[in-house]
């Protein structure tokens, strides 16, 4: 997992976003143990205090849990992960629409283009036998 940071937002929010991505798409799966704060800090090349803050944020959302003496784990609750997924999806969709509007697409045109792209992808997959 590649850790990258943009300039315009606090790093701790970006770290927590990327851990959420890690929970949704791997390598951090439901119920699994997370690396320690220090390990995460070295992996992401950020300050350990920043990682700590990002983890507290996720903990307050219930996405991760601290088990005494053993470390932090991704939640077992499917519902919470599903919520995080929907929230992330809604954000991506809103961003997509915003970018398309900036290009001059109407909402309908943008959706049509999505369908078309989806269709082509489907065909391509048939050809390659996926």
């Amino acid at each position, binding site marked *: 997992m590649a850790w990258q940071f943009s300039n315009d937002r606090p790093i701790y929010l970006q770290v927590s976003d990327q851990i959420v991505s890690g929970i949704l798409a791997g390598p951090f799966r439901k119920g699994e143990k997370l690396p320690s704060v220090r390990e995460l800090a*070295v992996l992401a*090349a950020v*300050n350990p205090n920043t990682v700590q803050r990002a983890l507290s944020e996720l903990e307050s959302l219930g996405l991760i849990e601290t088990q005494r003496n053993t470390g932090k784990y991704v939640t077992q609750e499917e519902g919470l992960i599903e919520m995080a997924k929907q929230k992330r999806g809604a954000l991506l969709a809103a961003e997509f629409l915003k970018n398309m509007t900036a290009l001059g697409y109407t909402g309908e045109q943008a959706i049509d283009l999505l369908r078309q792209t989806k269709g082509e992808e489907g065909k391509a997959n048939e050809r390659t036998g996926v």
Partner: protein
Amino acid sequence: MNGPAFECRGLTKYFARNPALLDINITLPAGKIIGLLGPNGSGKTTLIKLACGLLTPTEGRIRVCGHEPGIESKALVSYLPERTYLPEWMTAIDCLRYFRDFYADFDYARAVSMLQSLQVPADAVMKTLSKGTKEKVQLVLVMSRRARLYLLDEPIGGVDPAAREYILETILKNYSEDSTVLISTHLIADVEKVLDEFIFLQNGQLVSYASTDSLREDLGKSIDQYFREVFRC
């Protein structure tokens, strides 16, 4: 002991009639990685040298881990100077042994392994090493101490990007809750991810002392961009 790592009140330093620092008041907590930023000639090195006891203040007072700069504070402070001072005739490994003799908190095994990671030839005489390699040796020495306060004057300026990454990683790995790292540098973009807080100096005066993330939150920009705006030439 969890008092402030560094504290100064009304700290002022004149070189002849030229003010280098004017009435600086800062308290740096333990357990933070703090950037010391500012344009050339803003007083960064002067502040660090005062904290080390290499210069004496014209006015004001300094406390390093509760001590006035002196023998007790020097045992707790690991200082990376802007220029290396190691004797040219020594080999890198000689320098390590030299430091082991000097400082009770020096971790020799760790220094040897850092030297290897940075691919510094241990038996090469300092005179034969490049400027960047000498800086690596100096950095290994400084980071191998278990100090309470690390004062790093331009630690990454002279080394290649790979070594820069390794150095920042070393700082992160060695981070402990009771030691504070103060890094002076111009390469803000490279260090800002690892900084908890930063100090901006300009013309010997304190422009701001704030948390990195709170600045990003309030202004929606990076420290690097902020710096370029504040100090636009």
